[in-house]
Protein backbone atom coordinates (compact mmCIF):
# COMPACT_ATOMS: atom_id res chain seq x y z
CA UNK A 1 0.00 0.00 0.00
CA UNK A 2 2.89 2.38 0.67
CA UNK A 3 3.87 1.97 -2.98
CA UNK A 4 0.41 3.11 -3.97
CA UNK A 5 0.62 6.10 -1.63
CA UNK A 6 3.95 7.07 -3.15
CA UNK A 7 2.50 6.65 -6.60
CA UNK A 8 -0.44 8.90 -5.73
CA UNK A 9 2.00 11.49 -4.41
CA UNK A 10 3.86 11.31 -7.71
CA UNK A 11 0.57 11.82 -9.53
CA UNK A 12 -0.14 14.93 -7.47
CA UNK A 13 3.33 16.45 -7.63
CA UNK A 14 3.50 18.76 -10.69
CA UNK A 15 7.10 17.69 -11.32
CA UNK A 16 6.44 13.95 -11.51
CA UNK A 17 2.82 14.20 -12.62
CA UNK A 18 3.30 13.61 -16.32
CA UNK A 19 5.44 10.48 -16.01
CA UNK A 20 3.20 9.05 -13.29
CA UNK A 21 0.06 9.69 -15.28
CA UNK A 22 1.61 8.05 -18.33
CA UNK A 23 2.27 4.98 -16.19
CA UNK A 24 -1.29 5.04 -14.87
CA UNK A 25 -2.59 5.19 -18.42
CA UNK A 26 -0.47 2.33 -19.69
CA UNK A 27 -1.36 0.17 -16.66
CA UNK A 28 -5.08 0.72 -16.76
CA UNK A 29 -6.09 1.63 -20.30
CA UNK A 30 -6.61 -1.97 -21.44
CA UNK A 31 -8.52 -3.38 -18.45
CA UNK A 32 -10.65 -0.22 -18.18
CA UNK A 33 -11.31 -0.31 -21.92
CA UNK A 34 -12.61 -3.89 -21.65
CA UNK A 35 -14.72 -2.94 -18.65
CA UNK A 36 -16.30 0.02 -20.43
CA UNK A 37 -16.65 -1.77 -23.75
CA UNK A 38 -18.52 -4.61 -22.03
CA UNK A 39 -21.01 -2.07 -20.73
CA UNK A 40 -21.46 0.25 -23.72
CA UNK A 41 -20.74 -2.46 -26.38
CA UNK A 42 -19.75 -0.09 -29.17
CA UNK A 43 -16.08 0.72 -29.76
CA UNK A 44 -16.48 4.43 -30.52
CA UNK A 45 -18.63 4.89 -27.42
CA UNK A 46 -16.13 2.95 -25.33
CA UNK A 47 -13.35 5.18 -26.67
CA UNK A 48 -15.24 8.35 -25.64
CA UNK A 49 -16.10 7.00 -22.21
CA UNK A 50 -12.55 5.77 -21.60
CA UNK A 51 -11.10 9.19 -22.44
CA UNK A 52 -13.60 10.91 -20.17
CA UNK A 53 -12.83 8.43 -17.42
CA UNK A 54 -9.12 9.26 -17.50
CA UNK A 55 -9.82 12.99 -17.63
CA UNK A 56 -12.05 12.62 -14.56
CA UNK A 57 -9.43 10.51 -12.82
CA UNK A 58 -6.90 13.26 -13.48
CA UNK A 59 -9.23 16.00 -12.26
CA UNK A 60 -10.37 14.22 -9.12
CA UNK A 61 -7.02 12.76 -8.10
CA UNK A 62 -6.48 15.55 -5.58
CA UNK A 63 -9.73 14.53 -3.90
CA UNK A 64 -8.76 10.86 -3.79
CA UNK A 65 -8.63 10.04 -0.09
CA UNK A 66 -6.97 6.66 -0.38
CA UNK A 67 -9.90 5.06 1.45
CA UNK A 68 -10.14 2.51 -1.34
CA UNK A 69 -7.53 1.25 -3.74
CA UNK A 70 -6.70 3.33 -6.77
CA UNK A 71 -7.70 0.32 -8.85
CA UNK A 72 -11.25 0.08 -7.52
CA UNK A 73 -11.66 3.87 -7.45
CA UNK A 74 -10.83 4.06 -11.17
CA UNK A 75 -13.11 1.16 -11.98
CA UNK A 76 -15.87 2.90 -10.08
CA UNK A 77 -15.43 6.08 -12.10
CA UNK A 78 -15.36 4.06 -15.33
CA UNK A 79 -18.53 2.18 -14.35
CA UNK A 80 -20.38 5.38 -13.50
CA UNK A 81 -19.22 7.09 -16.67
CA UNK A 82 -20.28 4.13 -18.81
CA UNK A 83 -23.72 3.80 -17.20
CA UNK A 84 -24.33 7.55 -17.39
CA UNK A 85 -23.27 7.52 -21.02
CA UNK A 86 -25.68 4.67 -21.82
CA UNK A 87 -28.60 6.42 -20.13
CA UNK A 88 -27.88 9.70 -21.93
CA UNK A 89 -27.55 7.97 -25.27
CA UNK A 90 -30.81 6.12 -24.71
CA UNK A 91 -32.55 9.37 -23.75
CA UNK A 92 -31.24 11.12 -26.87
CA UNK A 93 -32.66 8.34 -29.02
CA UNK A 94 -35.91 8.20 -27.08
CA UNK A 95 -35.28 4.61 -26.04
CA UNK A 96 -34.94 2.77 -22.76
CA UNK A 97 -31.43 1.73 -21.87
CA UNK A 98 -32.41 -1.91 -22.46
CA UNK A 99 -33.92 -1.21 -25.89
CA UNK A 100 -30.79 0.67 -26.88
CA UNK A 101 -28.56 -2.24 -25.87
CA UNK A 102 -30.76 -4.74 -27.72
CA UNK A 103 -30.43 -2.57 -30.81
CA UNK A 104 -26.66 -2.32 -30.40
CA UNK A 105 -26.37 -6.10 -30.08
CA UNK A 106 -28.33 -6.58 -33.28
CA UNK A 107 -25.81 -4.35 -35.03
CA UNK A 108 -22.85 -6.21 -33.52
CA UNK A 109 -22.63 -8.60 -36.48
CA UNK A 110 -21.74 -5.73 -38.76
CA UNK A 111 -19.40 -4.13 -36.24
CA UNK A 112 -15.85 -4.33 -37.55
CA UNK A 113 -14.51 -4.38 -34.02
CA UNK A 114 -16.55 -7.39 -33.00
CA UNK A 115 -15.07 -10.78 -33.63
CA UNK A 116 -17.76 -13.20 -32.56
CA UNK A 117 -20.23 -15.70 -33.90
CA UNK A 118 -23.73 -16.83 -32.97
CA UNK A 119 -22.91 -17.92 -29.43
CA UNK A 120 -21.33 -14.56 -28.52
CA UNK A 121 -24.35 -12.70 -29.81
CA UNK A 122 -26.73 -15.05 -28.05
CA UNK A 123 -24.82 -14.59 -24.81
CA UNK A 124 -25.00 -10.80 -25.18
CA UNK A 125 -28.74 -11.01 -25.84
CA UNK A 126 -29.15 -13.15 -22.73
CA UNK A 127 -27.16 -10.64 -20.64
CA UNK A 128 -29.40 -7.74 -21.70
CA UNK A 129 -32.41 -9.48 -20.14
CA UNK A 130 -30.75 -9.29 -16.71
CA UNK A 131 -31.16 -6.47 -14.17
CA UNK A 132 -28.39 -3.86 -14.42
CA UNK A 133 -26.54 -5.04 -11.30
CA UNK A 134 -26.50 -8.67 -12.42
CA UNK A 135 -25.28 -7.60 -15.85
CA UNK A 136 -22.38 -5.76 -14.28
CA UNK A 137 -21.47 -8.61 -11.96
CA UNK A 138 -21.66 -11.18 -14.73
CA UNK A 139 -19.52 -9.15 -17.13
CA UNK A 140 -16.91 -8.37 -14.49
CA UNK A 141 -16.70 -11.96 -13.31
CA UNK A 142 -17.07 -13.89 -16.55
CA UNK A 143 -15.49 -11.67 -19.22
CA UNK A 144 -13.07 -9.57 -17.18
CA UNK A 145 -12.27 -12.36 -14.71
CA UNK A 146 -12.06 -10.02 -11.75
CA UNK A 147 -12.03 -11.53 -8.25
CA UNK A 148 -15.16 -11.30 -6.12
CA UNK A 149 -13.20 -9.23 -3.60
CA UNK A 150 -12.25 -6.75 -6.32
CA UNK A 151 -15.79 -6.52 -7.67
CA UNK A 152 -17.08 -6.03 -4.11
CA UNK A 153 -14.74 -3.06 -3.66
CA UNK A 154 -15.71 -1.54 -6.98
CA UNK A 155 -19.46 -1.91 -6.57
CA UNK A 156 -19.52 -1.41 -2.82
CA UNK A 157 -21.37 -4.66 -2.03
CA UNK A 158 -20.54 -7.76 -0.06
CA UNK A 159 -18.88 -10.81 -1.61
CA UNK A 160 -21.83 -12.94 -0.53
CA UNK A 161 -24.33 -10.73 -2.34
CA UNK A 162 -22.13 -10.77 -5.46
CA UNK A 163 -21.89 -14.55 -5.48
CA UNK A 164 -25.68 -14.75 -5.25
CA UNK A 165 -26.04 -12.18 -8.06
CA UNK A 166 -23.59 -14.06 -10.28
CA UNK A 167 -25.33 -17.36 -9.58
CA UNK A 168 -28.73 -15.88 -10.52
CA UNK A 169 -27.25 -14.31 -13.64
CA UNK A 170 -25.71 -17.59 -14.81
CA UNK A 171 -28.97 -19.47 -14.22
CA UNK A 172 -31.01 -16.93 -16.20
CA UNK A 173 -28.47 -16.87 -19.02
CA UNK A 174 -28.48 -20.68 -19.26
CA UNK A 175 -32.28 -20.75 -19.41
CA UNK A 176 -32.28 -18.03 -22.09
CA UNK A 177 -29.64 -19.72 -24.27
CA UNK A 178 -31.32 -23.15 -23.93
CA UNK A 179 -34.72 -21.86 -25.00
CA UNK A 180 -33.59 -19.56 -27.82
Amino acid sequence: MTDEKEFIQELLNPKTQNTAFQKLLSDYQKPLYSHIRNIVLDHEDANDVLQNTFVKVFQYLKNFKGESKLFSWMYRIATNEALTFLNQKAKLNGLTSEALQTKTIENLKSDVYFDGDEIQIKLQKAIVTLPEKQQLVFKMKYFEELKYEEIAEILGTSVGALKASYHHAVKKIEIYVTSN
Partner: protein
Amino acid sequence: MKAFKLENEPKIKSGFTTPEHYFDDFSAKVLQQINNEKEVKVLPLYKRKNVISIAAAAVIVFALMIPIVNNYNATSKELDEATLETYLSYQSNLNQYDLIQNLDTTDLQKLNKNVAIEDETLEDILASNPNIEHLITE
Protein backbone atom coordinates in the same frame (compact mmCIF):
# COMPACT_ATOMS: atom_id res chain seq x y z
CA MET B 1 -32.36 -29.40 -27.10
CA LYS B 2 -29.58 -30.06 -24.63
CA ALA B 3 -29.62 -27.76 -21.64
CA PHE B 4 -26.96 -25.08 -21.97
CA LYS B 5 -24.51 -25.02 -19.08
CA LEU B 6 -22.08 -22.16 -19.00
CA GLU B 7 -19.46 -24.06 -17.03
CA ASN B 8 -19.53 -27.04 -19.43
CA GLU B 9 -18.89 -24.82 -22.41
CA PRO B 10 -15.47 -23.66 -23.44
CA LYS B 11 -14.95 -20.12 -22.21
CA ILE B 12 -16.89 -17.70 -24.37
CA LYS B 13 -14.91 -14.55 -25.10
CA SER B 14 -16.72 -11.24 -25.26
CA GLY B 15 -15.57 -10.93 -28.87
CA PHE B 16 -14.85 -7.24 -28.58
CA THR B 17 -11.77 -6.06 -30.41
CA THR B 18 -10.10 -2.70 -30.93
CA PRO B 19 -8.61 -1.08 -34.00
CA GLU B 20 -4.98 -1.97 -34.51
CA HIS B 21 -2.56 0.22 -32.54
CA TYR B 22 -5.53 1.74 -30.75
CA PHE B 23 -3.72 1.86 -27.43
CA ASP B 24 -0.47 3.14 -28.92
CA ASP B 25 -1.61 6.71 -29.11
CA PHE B 26 -4.44 6.56 -26.61
CA SER B 27 -2.50 8.16 -23.75
CA ALA B 28 -1.45 11.01 -26.03
CA LYS B 29 -5.11 11.64 -26.85
CA VAL B 30 -6.05 11.70 -23.17
CA LEU B 31 -3.24 14.10 -22.29
CA GLN B 32 -4.31 16.31 -25.16
CA GLN B 33 -7.87 16.34 -23.84
CA ILE B 34 -6.67 17.17 -20.33
CA ASN B 35 -4.70 20.13 -21.69
CA ASN B 36 -7.74 21.29 -23.62
CA GLU B 37 -9.86 21.13 -20.48
CA LYS B 38 -7.25 23.21 -18.66
CA GLU B 39 -7.51 25.93 -21.30
CA VAL B 40 -11.29 26.00 -21.09
CA LYS B 41 -11.04 26.66 -17.36
CA VAL B 42 -12.02 30.30 -18.01
CA LEU B 43 -15.61 29.18 -17.59
CA PRO B 44 -15.61 28.51 -13.83
CA LEU B 45 -13.94 31.90 -13.25
CA TYR B 46 -16.76 33.64 -15.10
CA LYS B 47 -19.29 31.62 -13.16
CA ARG B 48 -17.64 32.56 -9.87
CA LYS B 49 -17.78 36.23 -10.78
CA ASN B 50 -21.46 35.82 -11.39
CA VAL B 51 -21.92 34.20 -8.01
CA ILE B 52 -20.04 37.04 -6.32
CA SER B 53 -22.22 39.69 -7.97
CA ILE B 54 -25.37 37.82 -6.95
CA ALA B 55 -24.06 37.56 -3.38
CA ALA B 56 -23.26 41.29 -3.36
CA ALA B 57 -26.76 42.12 -4.59
CA ALA B 58 -28.25 39.96 -1.87
CA VAL B 59 -26.15 41.70 0.79
CA ILE B 60 -27.30 45.13 -0.45
CA VAL B 61 -30.94 44.05 -0.35
CA PHE B 62 -30.54 42.84 3.21
CA ALA B 63 -28.72 46.03 4.21
CA LEU B 64 -31.57 48.13 2.81
CA MET B 65 -34.03 46.10 4.79
CA ILE B 66 -32.38 46.85 8.16
CA PRO B 67 -34.18 50.23 8.80
CA ILE B 68 -37.51 48.67 7.83
CA VAL B 69 -37.00 45.79 10.21
CA ASN B 70 -35.94 48.15 13.01
CA ASN B 71 -38.99 50.33 12.46
CA TYR B 72 -41.26 47.35 12.49
CA ASN B 73 -39.80 46.15 15.78
CA ALA B 74 -40.15 49.62 17.38
CA THR B 75 -43.85 49.96 16.55
CA SER B 76 -44.66 46.56 17.85
CA LYS B 77 -43.77 47.51 21.47
CA GLU B 78 -46.44 46.93 24.10
CA LEU B 79 -48.81 49.76 25.01
CA ASP B 80 -47.77 51.68 28.03
CA GLU B 81 -50.20 52.20 30.94
CA ALA B 82 -50.93 55.89 30.33
CA THR B 83 -51.95 55.28 26.71
CA LEU B 84 -54.21 52.48 27.78
CA GLU B 85 -55.84 54.59 30.47
CA THR B 86 -56.41 57.49 28.10
CA TYR B 87 -57.89 55.18 25.57
CA LEU B 88 -60.23 53.60 28.07
CA SER B 89 -61.48 56.89 29.45
CA TYR B 90 -61.89 58.79 26.17
CA GLN B 91 -62.35 56.28 23.41
CA SER B 92 -64.37 53.47 24.88
CA ASN B 93 -67.98 53.14 25.95
CA LEU B 94 -67.03 51.95 29.40
CA ASN B 95 -68.90 53.76 32.17
CA GLN B 96 -68.73 53.34 35.90
CA TYR B 97 -71.51 50.78 35.89
CA ASP B 98 -69.51 48.53 33.60
CA LEU B 99 -66.56 48.87 35.94
CA ILE B 100 -68.71 48.06 38.99
CA GLN B 101 -70.07 45.01 37.24
CA ASN B 102 -66.56 43.64 36.98
CA LEU B 103 -65.64 44.08 40.61
CA ASP B 104 -65.42 40.91 42.68
CA THR B 105 -65.51 40.45 46.49
CA THR B 106 -61.81 41.01 47.01
CA ASP B 107 -61.99 44.23 45.05
CA LEU B 108 -64.94 45.35 47.17
CA GLN B 109 -63.11 44.61 50.41
CA LYS B 110 -60.12 46.60 49.20
CA LEU B 111 -62.39 49.48 48.36
CA ASN B 112 -64.05 49.28 51.78
CA LYS B 113 -60.74 49.59 53.53
CA ASN B 114 -59.92 52.71 51.59
CA VAL B 115 -63.28 54.25 52.25
CA ALA B 116 -63.35 53.52 56.00
CA ILE B 117 -63.41 56.97 57.47
CA GLU B 118 -63.24 57.70 61.12
CA ASP B 119 -66.44 58.97 62.77
CA GLU B 120 -64.85 62.26 63.78
CA THR B 121 -63.79 63.06 60.29
CA LEU B 122 -67.27 62.29 59.09
CA GLU B 123 -68.75 64.65 61.71
CA ASP B 124 -66.35 67.40 60.69
CA ILE B 125 -67.28 67.03 57.09
CA LEU B 126 -70.96 67.12 57.86
CA ALA B 127 -70.62 70.11 60.16
CA SER B 128 -68.53 72.16 57.78
CA ASN B 129 -70.68 71.36 54.76
CA PRO B 130 -73.21 74.06 54.16
CA ASN B 131 -75.28 71.92 51.85
CA ILE B 132 -75.90 69.31 54.48
CA GLU B 133 -79.60 69.22 53.94
CA HIS B 134 -79.19 68.72 50.33
CA LEU B 135 -76.87 65.77 51.06
CA ILE B 136 -79.31 64.17 53.50
CA THR B 137 -82.20 64.31 51.15
CA GLU B 138 -80.27 62.75 48.32
